[in-house]
């Protein structure tokens, strides 16, 4: 076997993934040009609006979700079958990804729920609510089995993980702060009516739908390319839903374990986990904090309100740049810029606005009201991030004694790689199948 070919294959893989999404729909957008201005005898097909998807199918989706979650929990916790989880993952990718084109997904449903909280006019569909809550409920009981075998985004990344490279722990910890910031940001976006940003930064939806701009496809391909080497980069360093799943999983009633019984400290599980979610045993000497560390912890605890308040103040001061995520504010600013006479050409948006006859003063009043909302939202976002930062720093300052290899309950995807690598697991399986006869001493 020519091993030198393998890297090339991976490059090809990513290029082709890009090519696959380079698909028809973007190009199809080009066909919307006028029909010929002369009679050619060709009978134009009648245009029609496709009927809305039957509501019952939404409940079918929910049912499939529940079945998949149940199966994933069974396979991860009871059956402890990595192979089973792998095939479930393939099914989820095909069904929730390519068939349902990535929508509805629990990750995006976070926005719908946020909208329900901030817009009294909005009524969240039951199916969407179910998609948001059911995986969280399962996580609270069984850990992140949703990530293990049901999430199509995770599944796609898992498939592409071919040459895992371990990211240094400190870097992974630092990057792990991004989902909190993103979660706060998307809630701010929803609360101010600025849009659903999860869907905009979802790197894989363009693959599922086989459409997207060139920039979007390059962005998606970059994620896939990163995913060849870095395990689930989106799930670990961007997914806002993972923040909620972490909270649930930390307190989950049950959770996958590495070894079915006792840990032999072979460290194979540590090697098998491409995400670095296995905690190593910590001797007592290593966890005893020095005097300086104790002081640091105390200082941090005192500083928590200071960090929260600082975050809030800075967040509220960012109302101007933050408000630019809102189209109304952007339009108002563009109109204002044009009114200075320094802009030569109107944009399509301002031209449309000016043609609408809506008074500028109304637009400006709307923009200012929105900016006021961003000031308050920015304060809340800043406080939230300040709190997250404080707690993370406190968490990093606390040492824990550990006698054997343990899973990081909050972060672990329950993918089963660790237990499938565990020699105790292998041994017990073989015992069950009768391939090994154990002679007790």
């Amino acid at each position, binding site marked *: 076997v020519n091993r030198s070919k393998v890297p090339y294959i991976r490059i090809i893989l990513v290029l082709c993934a890009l090519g696959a999404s380079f698909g028809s729909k973007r190009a199809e957008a*080009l066909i919307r040009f006028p029909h*010929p201005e002369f009679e050619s005898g060709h009978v134009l097909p009648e245009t029609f609006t496709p009927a809305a998807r039957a509501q019952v199918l939404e409940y079918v989706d929910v049912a499939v979700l529940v079945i998949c979650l149940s199966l994933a929990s069974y396979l991860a916790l009871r059956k402890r079958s990595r192979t089973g989880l792998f095939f479930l993952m393939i099914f989820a990718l095909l069904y929730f990804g390519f068939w349902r084109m990535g929508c509805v997904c629990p990750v995006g449903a976070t926005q719908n729920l946020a909208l329900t909280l901030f817009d009294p006019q909005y009524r969240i569909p039951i199916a969407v609510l179910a998609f948001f809550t059911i995986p969280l409920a399962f996580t609270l009981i069984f850990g992140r089995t949703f990530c293990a075998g049901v999430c199509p985004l995770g599944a796609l990344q898992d498939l592409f993980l071919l040459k895992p490279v371990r990211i240094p722990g400190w870097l992974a910890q630092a990057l792990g702060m991004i989902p909190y910031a993103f979660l706060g940001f998307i809630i701010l976006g929803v609360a101010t009516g600025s849009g659903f940003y999860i869907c905009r930064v979802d790197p894989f939806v363009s693959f599922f739908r086989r459409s997207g701009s060139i920039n979007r496809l390059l962005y998606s391909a970059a994620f896939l390319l990163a995913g060849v080497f870095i395990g689930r980069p989106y799930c670990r360093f961007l997914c806002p839903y993972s923040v909620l799943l972490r909270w649930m999983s930390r307190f989950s009633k049950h959770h996958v374990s590495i070894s079915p019984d006792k840990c032999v400290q072979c460290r194979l599980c540590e090697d098998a986990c491409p995400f670095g979610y296995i905690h190593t045993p910590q001797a007592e000497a290593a966890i005893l904090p020095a005097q300086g560390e104790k002081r640091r912890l105390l200082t941090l605890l005192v500083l928590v309100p200071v960090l929260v308040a600082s975050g809030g103040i*800075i967040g509220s001061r960012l109302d101007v740049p933050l408000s630019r995520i809102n189209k109304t504010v952007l339009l108002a600013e563009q109109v204002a810029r044009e009114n200075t006479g320094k802009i030569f050409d109107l944009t399509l948006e301002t031209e449309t606005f000016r043609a609408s006859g809506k008074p500028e003063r109304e637009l400006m009043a709307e923009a*200012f009201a929105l900016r006021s909302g961003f000031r308050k939202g920015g304060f809340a976002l800043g406080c939230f991030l300040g709190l997250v930062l404080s707690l993370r720093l406190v968490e990093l300052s606390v040492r824990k004694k550990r006698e054997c290899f343990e899973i990081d309950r909050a972060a672990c995807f329950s993918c089963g790689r660790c237990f499938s690598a565990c020699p105790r697991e292998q041994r017990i399986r073989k015992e069950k199948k009768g391939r090994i006869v154990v002679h007790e001493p």
Partner: protein
Amino acid sequence: MNRKTKGIPPEGIVSIARGGAVVAGVFCLIVCVLMVTTYIRLRASHPLESTLIQSYVDRLTDAPENESLKKEIRSLDLLARRAFFTGLWQIRVGSYLILGGVAVMLICLKLAAAYGKKPPAPVAAGPSPDESISSTKAFKVILAGAAAIMAAALLISFLAKSTLENQVELTASSGQESAEGEAGTGTRWAEKGDYVENILATESLVTNWPFFRGPGGNGRAAPGAYPLSWDGNTGEGVLWKTEVPLAGFNSPILWEDRVFLSGSEGGTQEVYCFASSTGALLWRRSVENIPGSPAQPPAVSPDTGYAAPSMATDGSRVYAIFPTGDLACFDFEGTRKWAQNLGLPDNHYGHASSLMVYDDLLLVQYDDMSEPKLLALDAETGRVVWKVLREVAASWASPILIYTGRRPELIVNATPFVTSYDPRDGRELWRVECLWGEVGASPAYSSGMVFAANQYAMLAAISLDTKDILWEAYDDLPDASSPLATEEHLFIGTSYGVVTCFDAKTGQILWIHEFEEGFYSSPILAGDRVYLMDRSGIMHVFEDAPEYRPLGESPLGEPSDSTPAFGRNHIFIRGEKHLFCMGG
């Protein structure tokens, strides 16, 4: 330990899987390249942009009955569309082929990985790595990162400047009130909105009087408590009165605490700066020693004089022009920044068009009989930024600057056109032929309509949307006085004392009033009052109303042909010999 398989050894499966992955990968790559090529081809050869078809269509325009040509165009069009849709189909099919290829490749790679996996090699017993090292490093990195992000955010919060605030400045004295979106915002808009909507102005331009006929040169004063009556003979209602050293018909301009005028009696050309609160002459400067300036002043008519063009200011510099073609720039302390001669204008009455500033450009309407032109000079250096040669006769009118909601427009009157230019680059935007004779009155603008009028010619109301003349009138038209357009009405003052009020929308004459003296000064709208001074120096104030409703008549005590400046609740009037400040 490798997986065991029946028949084929694991190495064989790995070899086959990797081979399969290579084949699938190469297949995908080829399809991918083909798809990209097709995509590029499709973008380059869009059926609607075919130059070949267009050339045939152009030929058809010349020979519309040519049936064979039509047939050829149809077949070409069909061909182009067919090629286009075939390309789309190829891309669509290609995407499915790639998906299939990628699936095969992934399966092969997973198989190769599964069967090629080396037996696990437990690490030699030893102490586990101390997680506290990693945690401490993470602590430091997160802390440093958070500090950097907070510092950057703080910096951005100070640097981020929203253009919306400019709108607030225009519409409300307190940005905070508007920013909160309170009801007060609407009220303030209502107070000043109608005024600022129609002119190109910033807050400072609105509250000052930087050009002839005010901000934008459109004859509208910022809302304020302007005096209604005074008596220049007795001093009643006159805040101060200061003698102006040299004569001139130019009108005062105002910027905060300073009023500027120019004067000349042929030989000496001077610029004056007065204190707006006391009338004290702060400085006077001669405009002299300019290369190219004529040794002898040109002949001018007594009605125009040697200092007819009004000055202009941008708040930091003032600009003055004289019939000699001398153009000078001074700062507010009277230091000459630059000066140049634009060439002696070939103008039998004497140059009279006033200056205008847009952004950092000094705009000069320089329509003489030899080479009529419009110039934009860098306000800081005097360098010509753009120059437009015009196909018009000499003109004594002044430009106005408007903002139509879409763009700024510089509108100038000169026989035979009313012409609009983009003040930023001199690009001509539109022109309407409706003037003839010797044009002295400047245009006026309100509510999407431009009004141009000239004695012995016509009054034309031009729609800014369609550039059509919506209505026209021929009687009692102005000579030197410019029209005033308000929201509902158009006021015209003639040199023989007739003032006509038109319905601005329809052209219907609403009222005509004949005064004893004629008007060279232009009417100014302040709130709902129209101020118009006759040549004897009597200021007539009447309502902006469909009937003539006089509000007062105030004598200046000396003749005046200049247009007053309004600002800071005062009115500044240049008489024959004095500069007056009326109010409080």
